[in-house]
């Protein structure tokens, strides 16, 4: 990439100093080009008296590009917040930028209408060329000789470093008679090139709020005042009179006499923190600002004080002959009770503008981020000829946020992304879990209504199967358990586990419910494969398929099956991880739920066989084989609350609930084996059914008998009470 500019400078070396024929020819060609542009610009200028330029790319005709950046084949507008520029490409390679001084600096020359010089800057930081597109410089207008000199002068900027004050090229005096214009253009090209390149090459990474000393954009005093970047005192003669009145000097005349009527301007003074170029560079002249940046010790702070109009300025009557060391008596700056008075050596002043930089050394204990005030003093002339100072204005200032670079907002951690992006799913799941919680809390009320329980139960199972299982694909599985077990030994961050919102929520809910109520909350309500088995079993019973259940003793032995499959998987995880992933296929969740049977045939056959068995022995897989069920059953021993109701008659002599339990979790003794209970609440429906539960129906019958009993008996009682 560095090859391009280097090659060119080598080719130019012999020509340095003299005007070789090659150079002359180039200059002539440029001259012709500029003349041609001239005509266009005259017309354009008439239309746009301020020379606003229009879109940069429109101004970059092939001739202009060739003149300011030879060898460029393509230009492309840079879309960022920096000083406007077009990226210049030589083939596929980016070589630098082309910009317009009008866009970047809006710098005026001798005339107050800003000129437009287009220039290029290579990535090596050197100017590649410059041509003037528009100007209103009086000593150049309609002067062919000077215009030719200007073209040569600008052309000689090639190879100069892109910073104000760079040396080399021709002296502005070369354009005899228009030196001010030439110098202004030269400065604008050098300064603009530095800005255009600097913005794109200096990586500004701030870690804390930092005052923006990088970005620049031409802005007027009005714009800056509106933004709060300048504090401005516009004082009319009437204001002056009021201030003198207040100071008890109403009878005297001001030191600087007023001009005009009460509404005429006496002073128009602005203050601002000058280090941000948007404030300082727009306030003072380029040279003055350059002195702050390059001519003062690192960390020097500066306050911009400018007088924009009126008869009274901030410098004071004796400023011009103020010998070094004397005080600027008309202004002071105050912050946090500390007053800063400034002496002449503390000031860099602008030429041609009453716009100064008041320097505060790095150790001045001034905090530019904190608010400060500026005071303006004027004097009244007393009858004895002496002067008495009084305060003319007091300005509050605080640096607006636009001038402060903020560190990039802390990005949400990577795991948060799935939570934000997956909010609809999360919301559905949370609602479902709230419903489930309500079901469990109000199970007494629910199970008293057999029909309602049936609908709620089947509805929830359907939701679990279809939404949790098939749509959201959030089947908790032994793989998750194993991942959690392996977590401390693996290097996966905690974030990796957090990045699965549905699984995380389900895991937490399951863990909490396991500790409170037992295994059944997950297995009975939230496991999609469990739901699939139970729903199929219900269909099977509706179709009157024969049902088979082992005897209590055999069942006890079969229960061990699931613990065995869990043990097998756990051992393999640590002994032979490859085999453990095969062993994990014991659970057909992936086949039946996550992949919805879209898998290789052996897996599908296995899952169908398990489901088929479930048609005759409800949830056979859950009870005798499921490793996840086994995990939960083992931990079930810890649960704290028993919500399922029992009566003394349960088991002796009554066996109704026992038979009603679809998974035979109730022993002959009437005790519920909680590790095998799925919290389906079927037994509770029986428990509350006063037509089926024998002890309850006995009480009901007694009550009814009492109701139907000898008619007079009860009214008699009532009557007696009434009497």
């Amino acid at each position: 990439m560095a090859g391009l500019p280097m090659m060119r400078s080598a080719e130019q070396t012999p020509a340095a100093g003299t005007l070789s024929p090659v150079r002359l020819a180039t200059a002539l060609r440029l001259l012709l080009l500029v003349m041609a542009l001239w005509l266009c610009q005259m017309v354009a200028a008439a239309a746009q008296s301020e020379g606003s330029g229009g879109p940069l790319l429109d101004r970059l005709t092939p001739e202009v590009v060739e003149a300011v950046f030879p060898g460029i084949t393509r230009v492309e507008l840079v879309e960022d917040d920096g000083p406007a520029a077009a990226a210049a490409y030589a083939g596929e390679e980016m070589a630098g930028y082309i910009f317009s001084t009008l866009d970047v600096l809006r710098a005026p020359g001798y005339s107050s209408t800003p000129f437009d010089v287009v220039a290029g800057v290579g990535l090596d930081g050197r100017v590649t060329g410059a041509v003037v597109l528009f100007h209103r410089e009086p000593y150049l207008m309609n002067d062919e000789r000077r215009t030719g000199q200007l073209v040569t002068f600008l052309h000689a900027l090639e190879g100069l470093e892109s910073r104000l004050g760079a040396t080399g090229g021709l002296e502005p005096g070369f354009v005899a008679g228009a030196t001010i214009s030439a110098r202004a253009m030269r400065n604008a090209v050098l300064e603009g090139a530095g800005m255009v390149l600097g913005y794109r090459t200096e990586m500004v990474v701030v870690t804390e709020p930092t005052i923006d000393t990088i970005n620049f954009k031409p802005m007027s005093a009005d714009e800056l005042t509106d933004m709060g970047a300048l504090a401005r005192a516009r004082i009319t003669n009437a204001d002056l009179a009021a201030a003198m009145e207040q100071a008890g000097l109403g009878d005297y005349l001001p030191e600087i006499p007023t001009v005009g009527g009460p509404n005429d301007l006496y002073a128009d003074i602005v203050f601002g923190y000058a280090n941000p170029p948007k404030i300082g560079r727009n306030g003072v002249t380029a040279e003055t600002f350059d002195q702050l940046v390059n001519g003062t010790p690192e960390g020097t702070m500066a306050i911009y004080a400018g007088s924009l109009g009126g008869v009274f300025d901030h410098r004071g009557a004796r400023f011009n002959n103020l010998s070094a060391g004397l005080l600027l008596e008309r202004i002071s700056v105050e912050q946090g009770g500390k007053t800063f008075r400034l002496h002449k050596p503390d000031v860099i002043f602008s030429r041609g503008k009453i716009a100064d930089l008041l320097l505060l050394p790095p150790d001045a204990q001034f905090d530019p981020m904190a608010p400060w005030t500026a005071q303006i003093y004027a004097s009244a002339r007393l009858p004895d000829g002496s002067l008495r100072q009084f305060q003319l204005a007091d300005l509050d200032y605080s640096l607006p946020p636009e001038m402060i670079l903020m560190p990039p907002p802390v990005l949400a951690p990577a795991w948060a992304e799935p939570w934000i992006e997956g909010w609809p799913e999360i919301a559905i799941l949370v609602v479902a879990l709230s419903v489930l919680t309500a079901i469990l809390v109000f199970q007494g009320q629910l199970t008293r209504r057999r029909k309602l329980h049936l609908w709620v139960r089947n509805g929830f199972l359907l939701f679990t199967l279809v939404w949790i299982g098939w749509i959201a694909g959030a089947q908790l599985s032994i793989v998750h358990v194993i991942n959690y077990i392996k977590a401390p030994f693996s290097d996966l961050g905690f974030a990796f586990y957090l990045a699965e919102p549905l699984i995380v929520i389900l895991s937490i809910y399951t863990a909490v419910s396991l500790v409170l109520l037992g295994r059944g909350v997950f297995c009975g309500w939230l496991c999609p494969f469990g739901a699939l088995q139970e729903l199929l079993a219900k269909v099977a019973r509706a179709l009157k398929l024969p049902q088979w259940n082992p005897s209590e003793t055999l069942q006890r032995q079969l229960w061990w099956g699931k613990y065995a499959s869990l043990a097998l998987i756990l051992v393999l995880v640590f002994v032979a991880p490859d085999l453990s992933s095969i062993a994990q296929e014991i659970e057909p969740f992936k086949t039946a739920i996550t992949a919805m049977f879209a898998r290789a045939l052996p897996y599908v056959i296995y899952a169908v066989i398990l489901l088929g068995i479930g048609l005759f022995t409800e949830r056979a897989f859950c009870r005798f084989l499921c490793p996840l069920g086994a995990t939960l059953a083992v931990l079930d021993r810890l649960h704290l609350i028993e919500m399922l109701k029992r009566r003394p008659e349960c088991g002796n002599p009554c066996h109704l609930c026992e038979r009603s339990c679809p998974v035979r979790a109730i022993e002959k003794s009437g005790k519920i084996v909680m590790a095998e209970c799925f919290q389906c609440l079927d037994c509770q429906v029986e428990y509350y059914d006063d037509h089926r539960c024998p002890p309850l129906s006995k009480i009901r019958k007694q009550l009814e008998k009492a109701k139907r009993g000898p008619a007079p008996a009860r009214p008699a009682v009532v009557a007696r009470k009434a009497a």
Partner: protein
Amino acid sequence: MAGRLNRRHALRILGAGAVLGLGAVGLGTMRGQPEPKVWRGEVLGAVSAMTLWHPNPRVAERTIGRMLVEIDRLDRIFSLYRKDSELVQLNSEGRLAEASADLVLVFEESLRIAHLSNGAFDPSIQPLWQFKARGGGSKEELGQVLGLVDHAAIDLGARSIGFARPGMAATLNGIAQGHITDRITDLLVNDGFEQAMVELGETRALGSAPGGRPFAVGLVDPADPRAIARQVELASAGLAVSGGYGLRLDAEGGNHVIDPATGTSPGDLTQVAVISPRSIWADALSTAISVAGEAAAPRLLAAYPESRAILWRADGTVVEA
């Protein structure tokens, strides 16, 4: 109960079984050939992609989200563009007392191939890279820089990594991408994925393409990088390609394969493609063979199970090893 099984029962049972089977097949076809979910982005400065096939597209999407979390963690270890990455810390301080297992593993693999190839692959080549990128220098300077390139001067402990000489630095470019590719592929397997194409700086196929055929990967022609010279079939394996056509570093024809011993680019082979079960091996082998040359290929490949290579010679002929 079995004794009382009558004809009606038997029919019902058969019917139920048939319905169950049909239902499963029906559901299966509903989700039949899944559309792949594709993620594209950048990992360690390399154009990257993950293509996941899963019957449930939401699962694939969410899995990609989780894999990005893991990629982010690995980026914080290996990136040369993050000031706080472990690798940058190691290079600037010359020692890391508590390196992550990932960094240690990648150094282990790097040193293994470095020993096997007698330094043809050398993770400590970073100073030479920087020297080349700066535009080179005199013979003496080159000699000095070459003195800093020595894999034997890397001390690798169980958790610590250090350089024996000041000024040494490591680059894991390529091999770290191989590790990330492996790591993500392993996690996908663990998550139950059976089909995926992981291209995180290195390429690795998980399973085969839909339809059961291997993935077809095109290899560019080293003489004409815009043309596909050859297709290789990739199933459950990683592929890495080292070639001299990439970045041009200096005017003398030096390319991005540098011989750590001499600082020059070898001329024997123009491109090396290695297919190996793990991407980290594929990358190590392809770089090492590019530098060490055709003669060393069989011995290096033999050290890694199920690995093979395709070599492009300077004269344009192609051989398999």
